[in-house]
């Protein structure tokens, strides 16, 4: 493999991990969504680069979906939802930023150690993509568990899904990648519509045991 093509792919995938980190310390919803849009743009570039170096034209479709749907349509939609629900001022991290960042570093280390160790024989590009992808997935999970707000949970899930798309495009010649990215887009559209229609503001986990009993039918 040519050194430059490899470096660019490496740069874009690494950039994606960096943007995931940026999500961890956003404490305003609008800022979080803007960072997510950036995440989607970097993903689109990365997928398009993979399409170019693997000479796999169908991957351009996945890149286009990432660019149009995830970087433009969804963020614009979420902006509107937040304004309608009147939650744009909310500061909603459940865990301190320092702790979250440390946990994030731990997760990235974990995925690097794990993936690089188990894939010594794989194609170096696919191997690093996989390690980066696992980092992004774990960071996405971290965003989901450290936020109280339903919208930011959705953002966490979408960044997690970006990691999956990166892994799928990195696996050379994998079939069904386009189909899977379309399926995921539909899933996300469902989630976003659900949030909007049912005005789900918060995730339903609560440390308040009384509230918990109430909707579990324990004291009906």
């Amino acid at each position, binding site marked *: 493999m040519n050194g430059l093509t490899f470096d660019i792919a490496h740069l874009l995938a690494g950039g994606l991990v960096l943007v995931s980190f940026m999500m961890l310390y956003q404490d305003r919803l609008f800022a979080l969504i803007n960072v997510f849009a950036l995440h989607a743009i970097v993903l689109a570039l990365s997928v398009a680069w993979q399409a170019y170096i693997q000479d796999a034209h169908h991957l351009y479709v996945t890149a286009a979906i990432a660019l149009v749907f995830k970087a433009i349509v969804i963020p614009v939609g979420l902006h509107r939802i937040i304004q309608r629900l009147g939650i744009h001022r909310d500061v909603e991290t459940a865990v301190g930023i320092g702790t979250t960042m440390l946990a994030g570093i731990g997760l990235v280390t974990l995925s690097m150690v794990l993936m690089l160790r188990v894939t010594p024989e*794989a194609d170096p590009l696919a191997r690093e993509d*996989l390690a980066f992808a696992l980092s992004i997935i774990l960071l996405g999970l971290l965003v989901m568990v450290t936020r109280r707000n339903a919208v930011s949970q959705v953002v966490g899930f979408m960044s997690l899904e970006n990691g*999956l798309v990166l892994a799928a495009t990195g696996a*050379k010649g994998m079939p*069904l990648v386009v189909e899977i990215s379309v*399926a995921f887009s539909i899933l996300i559209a469902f989630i976003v519509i659900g949030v909007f229609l*049912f005005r789900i503001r918060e995730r339903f986990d609560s440390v308040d045991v009384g509230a918990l009993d109430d909707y579990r039918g*324990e004291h009906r």
Partner: protein
Amino acid sequence: MTAFSLDAVAAILLIPVFAAALLAALPKYRISAGVNVAASLLTLLAALSLLVTDRPQPGQYLLVDDLNIVFIVLNTFVGFTTSVFSASYIAHELESGRLTVPNLRFYHAMYQVMMFGMNLAFVSNNIGLMWVAVELATLTTVLMVGIYRTHEALEAAWKYFILGSVGIALALFGTILVYMAAQPVVGEGTNAMVWTVLIAHAARFDPALLNVAFIFLLLGYGTKVGLAPLHAWLPDAHAEGPTPISAVLSGLLLNVALYAVLRFKLLLAASPEAIAPGPLMITMGLTSLVFAAFMLYRRRDIKRLFAYSSIEHMGIIVFAFGIGGPLANFAGLLHMVMHSLTKSAIFFTVGHIAQVKGTQNIAEIRGLTETHPALGWALVIGVVAIAGLPPLGIFMSEFLVVSSTFARHPLLAMPLVFGILLAFGALLLRLTGVAFGEPRGSTAPAEASYIPMYSHLALVFAAGIYLPPPLVTWFQHVASILG
């Protein structure tokens, strides 16, 4: 003959699709309930025809083999009886105003889409396609769990949605890793996702990559099986959705995810240097069993009670498959079938009981055998069966699980027996009040359909007394495939 059985596979998939399109267009709910039953019956017949005809050659996308045919027949059978139950259940929901006619149109169409998703997951020979099918089945059940639009129902649906999505995301990552492991051996492209090709070459796959893949797949699909500690969605989804959906969730959807886990377990077992999948499954199974058994004691909602019982039984089943070997696999398979039949029968009964009494609160449901003998005794038989008392089918399968564990790993049998006895106590404790206590609440006669619940219970009873030899040989054969 080959052409005919190919048609049977196509029929299993196409009947639900066409029925869904038709049901989405039909405005009258009585007709659509009938169409729903008819379509489910046709699908069941198509599935049964697979038993007698020659099987089609496995293609790149579809496959019928000895393993999945058990699941397909069970799936279509319970799908059919649930549609019969659903017809009488929803008529009452419409009267009481909890559902509207447009809701029902949506509900019926989604029911068939869900059947399509589950059938597709079973017959798919492609791990990517299987993943898409499981996702489809999950999405449709999410929509149906939230159909009452109450705060609790939406919350349950949301929780199910988020946890389920994380589950399928992890499963997809596992699937990608399996592809990565297969790609150097099998070559690029669709072939590296075809299950029959994978299993033939699994011995040469990179074992380390397969190990990591299996962990992700077990966590991902395990979320859907309802294994502790990933079970949090399950009780809410069962309690807040319509009861026919609780029945198919417990009876069928958990099996779909279990089937996916089993397929990948086989793949791992075929690779000599990979870790043994058994201990992981045993640990998760035992955790689920003991955890759910404790949770059974403090339940006040009757559907939630049986949802925890489903976690308990899925724990036993995963444990049995984790132990492995012909006897434990046989026991696990039998237990899975018995649990599906019994649990859906219980939910059919509980659905009608909750409608008659107007509540799901256990404390307000008392003395059912006096006020509604047919429902009350169905519940008694169902709970006695699910608690594992002889002579019913679950006693036999649980006995087989326990005895095969004693034979091979006596120490593991202790927590297993402890969990089973604990759950047994909780269920009988609740049952005595509900069935035999001082009558309380409405005594209005129930407009119930008794055929689905009693036919399931009769099957479970018959299986406890006598298993026909052809069935035994069939299950033994499947158990030997499972290794």
